[in-house]
C-alpha cells in the first residue's frame, strides 16, 4: 500500500510539474500547481510528517495558490499568442537542468545511504516533539521568522501603493 501510494504520488508530482512548466496560460499552470502541492503533502504523510503535510496543504494549496490566482486574474495576462520559444534558451535550459540531474544522480549513486536508508523511525506522535524542538533549540530563528513576516507585510503594503515616494 505504501509503495503503491508512493509511486502514485511521485508520478503525479512529476507529471503535474511538467504541466506547470509547459502550460501556455498562467491560470492553467496555477491550477496544476494545486494538485502538485497536495501530492507533496501526500508524500509528507508517507514520510510520517503529518504536521508538515497539514501545513503544506493549508499554506501552499490554500494561501499561496489563492494569492497566485488572485494576481493572475488581476493582471489579466493574455495567453501568449506568438509563442516563439527562444531556441537558445530552450537548449541551455534543458541542457543545464539535465546536466544537474545527471550530477545529482551520480552523487546519489555514489553516496553511502545504506546505514541511514533502513533506520526505523522513533518519531511517534510527530507534532509534540516538533513543537518542543521549535520552541527550545530553534526559538531564535522562530522569532526572527515572525519579524520577517511583519517586514514582508509592511513591504507588500508599501509596494502596492499607487504612488511610491
Amino acid at each position, binding site marked *: 500500500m*505504501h*509503495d503503491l501510494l*508512493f509511486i502514485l504520488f511521485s508520478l503525479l*508530482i*512529476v507529471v503535474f*510539474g511538467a504541466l*506547470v*512548466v509547459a502550460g501556455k496560460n*498562467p491560470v492553467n*499552470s*496555477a491550477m496544476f*500547481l494545486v494538485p*502538485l*502541492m497536495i501530492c*507533496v503533502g501526500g*508524500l*509528507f504523510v508517507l*514520510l510520517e*510528517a503529518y*504536521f508538515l503535510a497539514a*501545513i*503544506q496543504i493549508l*499554506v*501552499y494549496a490554500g*494561501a*499561496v495558490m489563492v494569492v*497566485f490566482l488572485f494576481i*493572475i486574474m488581476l*493582471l489579466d*495576462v493574455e495567453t501568449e499568442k506568438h509563442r516563439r520559444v*527562444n531556441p537558445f*534558451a530552450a537548449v*541551455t*535550459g*534543458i541542457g*543545464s*537542468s*539535465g546536466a*544537474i*540531474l545527471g550530477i*545529482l*544522480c551520480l552523487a*546519489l549513486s555514489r553516496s553511502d*545511504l545504506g546505514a*541511514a*536508508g*533502513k*533506520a*526505523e523511525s522513533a*518519531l511517534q506522535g510527530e507534532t509534540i516533539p*516538533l513543537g518542543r524542538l*521549535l520552541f527550545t533549540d*530553534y526559538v531564535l530563528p522562530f522569532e526572527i521568522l515572525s519579524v*520577517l513576516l511583519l517586514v*514582508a507585510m509592511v*513591504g*507588500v503594503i508599501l*509596494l*502596492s501603493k499607487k504612488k*511610491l515616494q
Partner: protein
Amino acid sequence: MDIGIEAYLLVSMLLFCIGMGGVIVRRNLLIVYMSLELMLNAANIALVALSRFNGNLNGQVMVFFIITVAAAEVAVGLALIVALYRRHRTAQVNELNSLKL
C-alpha cells in the same frame, strides 16, 4: 519492493530539475515564479525524507521555516510583479530590459 530514501531523493531531484528548466526556459514572469515554488518544494521533499530516515526532526523544522519564508516571498514577489506590470504593461521577462523602474 521497498521504498527507501533513494526513491524520495530521486523524486526531489526530478522536481528540482523540472523547476530549474522552467525558470530558464519560460519567459512569463508568473510561470517563472511558479517554477521557483517547484524548486522549493523539491528541497522540502528531500529535507523531510532525510529527516525521516535519520530519525531526526531538525530537517522538519527547516521545512517549517522554508514554508513560512516561501509564503512571505510569494507575497513580496507578487507585489513586485504587480508594480512592474503597472509600469511596463507586460509580464514577459524578455520585455523587461531596463534597469529603471
